[in-house]
């Protein structure tokens, strides 16, 4: 499961994306557990980012599939 990173999250992690080894569907909570295992530096960002799944903001009850494209969306500032 690929997780895209943007803006200052790229600088923070030194990565443009992270790959969570495939384990079947994940809840939002399960996703965060796996992600922070992989990259503890993101823990401080969790309260500030929204999750997107396949180009849409994720909902609390979502289950993420291994083929989904996930993204961490920090507060936006376009326009």
């Amino acid at each position, binding site marked *: 499961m690929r997780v895209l990173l943007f*803006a*200052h999250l790229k600088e923070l992690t030194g990565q443009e994306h992270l790959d969570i080894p495939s384990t079947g569907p994940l809840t939002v909570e399960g996703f965060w557990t796996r992600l922070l295992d992989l990259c503890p530096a993101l823990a401080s960002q969790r309260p500030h980012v929204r999750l997107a799944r396949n180009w849409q*903001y994720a909902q609390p009850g979502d289950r993420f599939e291994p083929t989904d494209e996930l993204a961490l969306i920090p507060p*936006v500032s*376009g*326009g």
Partner: protein
Amino acid sequence: MNWRSFPQYPEADMEPIDIQITLDRIEDQTSAPSNDPRVGSQLEFRGLVRAEENGQTIVALEYEAYLPMARRTLETLARDLLARHRCLAVRVIHRLGVVPVGETAILIQVASRHRQEGFQFLKEYMDQLKTEVPIWKVRALPLLPAIPDAPALAISVLLP
């Protein structure tokens, strides 16, 4: 008298929703031509990079996007608000990359029957864009004192 030669209302040929994300300058994009005889109001908003960002004097901002999601979100917002406010057509162009002070980062044009509908569309579109669309100002390029004979040097400040 040229009003006599006005065509007898051809079918509207406006694309109702036109979304573009580009690295190019968008200064030269002028008002969307519309020969839709229902249009009574054309509104255009340009958001320009200002010389001041967080109290600091800058010369440019750099924008980054999550491209496919930004495009989809810009389009979904346009479709929802077009329907809600019964507007006729909208065009949105967002520039990415380094945008110098005084140049346009975003251009929105909306055509509607009456001006109130266009005003409402534009206000709500920008409000929602500012919270929902995954585009970021990632870097500010500050104004530095000129160094005679020094090689060009790009220095930037990471935005929070």
